[in-house]
């Protein structure tokens, strides 16, 4: 059985706001299935003595003191924005959700 269905790939594309053609979906569903299959094999190798990890280093509690450091100027902050207005980032109409 496939690890990921074509419908699931279509749903992920929708969540990621990526428009995909039927041909692309067919192609990617097959490709992602192969990738997930490979990951599943690694999981089989990991024994009970290997804890799941989200971070390669065995480090905990890395924190900083609550001290203010200089921010960017608004000009710097907005310099990479495709559009700005009134010292704010300008984005196209947001539809449907609130």
């Amino acid at each position: 059985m496939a690890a990921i269905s074509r419908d699931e790939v279509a749903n992920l594309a929708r969540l990621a706001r990526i428009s995909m053609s039927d041909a692309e979906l067919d192609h990617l569903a097959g490709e992602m299935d192969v990738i997930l299959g490979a990951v599943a094999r690694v999981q089989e190798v990991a024994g009970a003595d290997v804890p799941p990890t989200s971070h390669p280093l065995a480090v905990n509690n890395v924190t900083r003191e609550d001290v203010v450091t200089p921010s960017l100027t608004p000009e710097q902050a907005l310099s990479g924005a495709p559009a700005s207005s009134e010292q704010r980032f300008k984005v196209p109409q947001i539809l449907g959700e609130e």
Partner: protein
Amino acid sequence: MTLNYDSALAIYEPTLGLEVHVELNTKSKMFCGCATEFGAQPNTQTCPVCLGLPGSLPVVNKRAIESSILIGLALNCSIAPFSRFARKNYFYPDMPKNFQTSQYDEPICVNGFLDVDVETDEGNKTFRVEIERVHMEEDTGKSLHVGGATGRIHGADHSLLDYNRAGIPLVEIVTKIVPNTGKYAPLVARAYVATLRDILRSLKVSDVKMEQGSLRCDVNLSLSKIGSGKLGTRSETKNVNSLRSVERAVAGEIIRHANRLESGEKIVQETRHFLEESGETRPGRSKEQAEDYRYFPEPDLVPVVPDAKWIEELRTLLPEKPADRRKRLQTAWAVPDKEMNAMVNAELLDTVEQTVLLGADPTKARSWWLGEISRIANDKAVSPTDLMSVNDVAQIIELISKGELTDKLARQVVEGVIAKEGSPSEVIAKRGLKVVSDDSQLMKAIEEAIAAAPETAEKVRGGNIPAAGALIGAVMKLTGGQADAAKVRELLLKHLGQ
């Protein structure tokens, strides 16, 4: 037929769930050193981390973790020995990273409770609200929708984003379902948020200003037929921003749900928005599609693993519980329930306590802060503590008790201090507001008053003591209100042979 509140509750039992978001009052943001000042110019408090620029790396604010643990301890939670951050993925321009750093299945605190008191028909009753979790996350930016009629998203042709707020530490406190509150559901919800706010304030971890959004409440509500034992579908009302609104939102949703259910309609599981003017809610986004956040552990942050020593150190910082403190002060000051509630509701308990600690009589301190000063503050639409300092008030009360000021003169001093004429002693000097205690000066005024109203004086001489009132009034007027009325009365009656 339309159900009202009482008839709805004759058929249905409400179940509550409350989510409270608290902005912590750290100086810097959750994962970067940007300042957290409220009301700063747009986009002046941002950096590559909170703007989500490629290659930037977050580091957790230690004080934010400590504040979160303090909140957990104060809410009787277990502190997780191992806790992690997770990415909550969604596309919306309020987070420039396209995800919010939050906590998912490994929150910092779990399984607590908070007892809240509600006034019921049978007197005060305690409801236990169980806490599911307390987790850390970050606030989002502020959007301004431009081009629409009402500033709403529908009809807007573009939106403007200010990311000053993006990344401010946020703690989310989630209750378990709160059953069996019956008709008191709105009051329990309100009391929960009020009690929680008091605790957060006493911990000094947040400004807890609902009107500025540093404390926000989402109200979950469902109804089940009484006796059915089956939970209904819930609605979630977002960002209810005052205690009164919490109460109104619960009551309003009970009525709305009941009427839908009675007419055979289904409740849609959805987010709704509270409308301040009408007390009703309108639908927001439907949950069906929005819930898929694809959480996964945040690879750029390492786990938070608080050891017992750290937790115990924090536990020693817990202040006296607000409810205990209230009882202690009420007993010490011998304040009736009604006046105590007034003081708490006006948020003047701390202020009165500080005034008392400076030596003022508790009853006097309370009556000045809640009376004259609150009245002027109300007129000016500011808070009483913006007008007067605790020191000024304590000093004025001391002068009254020493007999150097009458209540009437003290009111003028208060007026002068508020008008920024200086400290109480400066106002007294500038306005010449000393009690006239010099007998000869008072006698002069008394003789003058008698000369102006010889018939009245004659009546008093003849034994009509109440007639003296008019003469005392005249003397007070002649001395510009600066005489002690009791003293005037004494001298006057003596002078007229009484």
